[in-house]
């Protein structure tokens, strides 16, 4: 073992291979051309082993998994190579026989647990279905097995949940049900395609831990397809890195992370922001996009985006070369190990509120902000309940800083963001923008005020009118606000496009003609058009690939300096927040439980929830991910916002809960200047006497 001497490949070779894929090629026929989605991919999965497959979207990871399952989309066809599952060749097998293996020898867990469960059948029925198909089990057997599986995948009180319908379960629970279905026939191989991408970090940690445990318990092989190197570092034994339908590097996880040879692996790893990363440096990113697989380029497919590319890269395709028995790569000009941070980055202007409190100007001031949504039901639309989306939140945002809002989905952060830009109005409480109360403005005044604050949407595609050319979309705010004449507006748009790194031709195009990253640039340009002072960015990068993500983050930081912008960045991603934000507010079930400067918060969190969130973030370094508590630290799920727990909302999931917590709502206290926390035991947590994850964990 090279690198950090971490041995993470425990005697894999004693176990037989469950899956052997050799030179697999899969094409997807379309109307006018054929996409060569998978091109000569080979790998194996041994019994009891987790193989991670990683790469950007469109690199053929999912198509590889679907080829094994025999579930290719219309037009998809395995055109060459072999897939041997448990010693039996699947390529060319007749359909009936293939069907008998699917769901019995191999099971699959899909990304979105909401759409992969049938909404009109109970979960018990759905778990019993594979048994019905493969074993012709009777109702009683099915039910017994379903109960067994539900407790196996960690669903509390299985007997009560077995007759539930999918909509009655949370996302994490649904994913557990999906896993139960995949495991019903005790498959030799489980394929998990982005099993946790749609889930919150705390739930992600739980599900990944569950998969780890099940793999060991049942002795199956696990194929973990993901774009997240953090997940790979913590949970895979070996890694296959895919790029443009090919394997570019493969190795044992410790070896690969410590001494990668392929520049793609290196760039992929270095473009991930990490909690506590040096904010003075820009993130490294991979320029451009993966190639079009309808006509893949000659030579090395990564060459056009590679900083090390030389002449021979464009002409000769590199073959897989061995470094050791467990590590191979395909590159003419290999690197050696991860990029040193010093060479990775160019300094950005360090800015934001560096001075002390006196010279900081408050731009946004929220006091006891509350937003309630009523739930109506029945014929007469009677009010049956109230969702407290935002429940008494107070904070200040200073001019020129980046304020991060972080929390699990459903904690009210998006609603808060929409209130800040005036798209929703608060139920009670006050919100001052630069001293002006937005709620009391007349319609005309509000329209004028809107120039000052703009929202940057999570999904830029949805935020652009599909029937408008980009130029028209970008000019529209100016037209609405009656700014400038046609010529001036057009010039402004051209200037903006240049600033966000798009070509002027973009104005002539429609939103669907752009890639995800380009669309987010357009979305950002549109929020800049009116020269606002505040931009609220709601999950600005979570829909993007890691390599593109860092480009957008760098762009946001650069333009903040140029235009003197104040940002509110809303995200569930702690690493993104830690890199972008000067100060951070942590939200839980409508309340802001902790506010502190970014450096302070990530070093010394004083709320158990913040601590737990931080520990749930997958770290893209096997040395850290494997040694420090690999067990999930925040258990359970977010309670319903209709009936939140009394007292402290977090008490149902908190390991340090005391009697007081259920009786009294903790008030915000300052544990240090500028660091306020709402927790009855904040002093103990802040001083380090209580550390989440180190004590025995409650169930």
């Amino acid at each position, binding site marked *: 073992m090279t690198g950090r001497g971490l041995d993470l490949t425990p005697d894999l070779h004693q176990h037989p291979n469950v899956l052997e894929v050799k030179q697999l090629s899969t094409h997807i026929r379309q109307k006018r051309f054929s996409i060569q989605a998978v091109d000569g991919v080979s790998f194996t999965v041994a019994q009891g082993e987790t193989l991670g497959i990683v790469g950007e979207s469109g690199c053929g990871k999912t198509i590889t998994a679907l080829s094994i399952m025999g579930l290719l989309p219309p037009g998809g066809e395995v055109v060459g190579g072999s897939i041997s599952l448990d010693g039996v060749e699947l390529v060319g097998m007749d359909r009936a026989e293939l069907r008998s293996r699917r769901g019995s020898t191999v099971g699959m867990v899909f990304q979105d647990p909401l759409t992969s469960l049938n909404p009109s059948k109970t979960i018990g029925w759905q778990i019993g279905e594979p048994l019905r198909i493969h074993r012709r089990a009777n109702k009683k057997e099915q039910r017994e097995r379903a109960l067994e599986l539900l407790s196996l995948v960690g669903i509390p009180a299985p007997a009560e949940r077995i007759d539930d319908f999918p909509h009655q379960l949370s996302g994490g629970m649904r994913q557990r049900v999906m896993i139960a279905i995949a495991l019903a026939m005790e498959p030799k191989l489980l394929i998990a395609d982005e099993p946790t991408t749609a889930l919150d970090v705390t739930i992600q940690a739980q599900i990944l831990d569950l998969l780890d445990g099940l793999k060991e318990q049942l002795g199956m092989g696990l194929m973990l397809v993901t774009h997240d190197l953090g997940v790979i570092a913590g949970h895979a034994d070996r890694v296959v890195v895919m790029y443009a339908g090919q394997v570019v590097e493969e190795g044992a996880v410790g070896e690969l992370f410590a001494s990668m040879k392929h520049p793609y692996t290196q760039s992929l790893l270095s473009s991930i922001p990490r909690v506590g990363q040096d904010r003075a440096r820009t993130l490294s*990113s991979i*320029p*451009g*996009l993966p*190639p*079009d697989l309808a*006509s893949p*380029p000659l030579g090395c497919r990564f*060459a*056009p*985006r*590679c900083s090390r*590319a030389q002449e021979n890269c464009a002409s000769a395709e590199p073959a897989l070369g061995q470094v050791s028995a467990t590590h191979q790569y395909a590159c003419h000009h290999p690197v050696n190990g991860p990029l040193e941070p010093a060479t990775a980055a*160019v300094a*950005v202007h360090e800015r934001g509120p560096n001075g002390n409190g006196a010279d900081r100007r408050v731009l946004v001031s929220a006091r006891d902000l509350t937003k309630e949504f009523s739930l109506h039901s029945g014929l007469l639309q009677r009010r049956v309940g109230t969702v407290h989306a935002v429940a008494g939140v107070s904070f200040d945002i200073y001019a020129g800083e980046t304020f991060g809002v972080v929390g699990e989905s459903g904690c009210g952060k998006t609603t808060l963001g*929409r209130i800040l*830009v*005036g*798209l929703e109005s608060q139920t009670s409480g006050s919100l001052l923008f630069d001293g002006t109360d937005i709620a009391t403005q007349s319609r005309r005044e*509000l*329209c*004028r005020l*809107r*120039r000052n604050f*703009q*929202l940057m*949407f999570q*999904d830029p595609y*949805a*935020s*652009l*009118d*599909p*029937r408008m050319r980009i130029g028209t979309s970008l000019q*529209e*705010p100016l037209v*609405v*606000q009656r700014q400038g004449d046609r010529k001036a507006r057009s010039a402004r748009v051209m200037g903006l496009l*240049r*600033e966000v*790194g*798009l*070509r002027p*031709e973009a104005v002539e*195009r*429609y939103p*669907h*003609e752009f*890639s995800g*990253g*380009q669309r987010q*640039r357009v979305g950002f340009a*549109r929020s800049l*058009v*009116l020269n606002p002072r505040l931009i609220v960015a709601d999950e600005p990068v979570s829909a993007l690939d890691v390599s593109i993500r860092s*480009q957008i983050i760098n*762009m946001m930081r*650069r333009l903040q*300096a*140029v235009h003197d912008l104040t940002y509110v960045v809303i995200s569930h991603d702690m690493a993104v927040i830690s890199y972008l934000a000067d100060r951070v507010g942590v939200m839980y079930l409508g309340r802001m439980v902790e506010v502190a400067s970014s450096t302070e918060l990530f070093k010394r969190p004083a709320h158990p929830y913040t601590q737990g969130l931080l520990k749930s973030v997958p770290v893209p370094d096997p040395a850290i991910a494997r040694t420090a508590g690999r067990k999930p630290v925040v258990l359970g799920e977010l309670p319903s916002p209709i009936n939140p727990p009394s007292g402290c909302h977090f008490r149902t999931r908190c390991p340090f809960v005391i009697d007081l917590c259920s009786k009294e709502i903790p008030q915000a206290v300052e544990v240090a200047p500028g660091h306020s926390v709402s927790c009855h035991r904040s002093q103990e947590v802040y001083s380090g006497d209580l550390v989440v994850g180190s004590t025995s964990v409650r169930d």
Partner: protein
Amino acid sequence: MPHGAEEIADQVIAGTGEMVESETFGDLSPSASPLSIALRTFSANKLAVASLAMLVIVVAFCYLGPVFYHTNQIATNLLRENQGPSAAHPLGTSPTGKDELGRLMLGGQSTIELGLAVGVIATGFGLVWGTVSGFIGGAVDSIMMRVVDALLSIPFLFFVILLASIVRPTLILVILVISGVSWLSTARLVRGETLSLRTRDYVSAARGFGASNTRLIARHIGPNVLGVLVVNATLKVADAILTFAALGYLGLSVPPPATNWGEILAGGVNNFFDGYWWQLWPAAILIVVTVLAVNVLGDALRDVVEARLNQR
């Protein structure tokens, strides 16, 4: 398409002194105009092109036919009733002794006029009603939709029979009556579409930079509803033609000397057992072919509308 390294070459942005990567547009051909994409999609659908051709022929038959083929459609001539096809009357004569071929042309004119008129009126009214109802929401929406529900609950045939016994039907009246029923489903469709569109991010975005309601409806919701609406309008035309034929068949339509295909069909059915096929089949075939062609055209339009958005 490879992204050449030089294409992605870093570019220094003036004023900031920082490096920014400029992106390329990959394999996109020069931006195709929406119209050319629409034409391309449409012409790829052979059935739709054939339908369009068929409709052109039917329209030419009805409107250009009488220019070259003169017949007397006013005077009844009982000496020539129910004659079979001959040189003088290629499709025979009607039970009242009028030339069948000429009669089909005349009947087609009123049918086509009615179809188009109903399509325009019902769609226009339904669009306005549905957009306003869906966009404003709340109590206004409830009231407007209950009006639609109430009108839908009136039995159509009963209403028409009642009306026909009170007033003497004219083409305009029939158009208004059919439109009066036809717009209801359009209003529902448009309202549903508007409800989903008004919560879209791009509508929020426009609201966020201060766009007025009028602007939201006119620029963002309207054009996006239009897609489904174009298709719906075509189907309305086909529906109206069928309804008109049914009414004519029941004798609830425009009085003589005006006629329509439904009425011709009814005459043919009366004499079917005498073997007067020329009074039945030509009218039946014309109705079926026209309605089918309009429906196929509607389907093709749906593809065209969607193709503009789903190019990749």
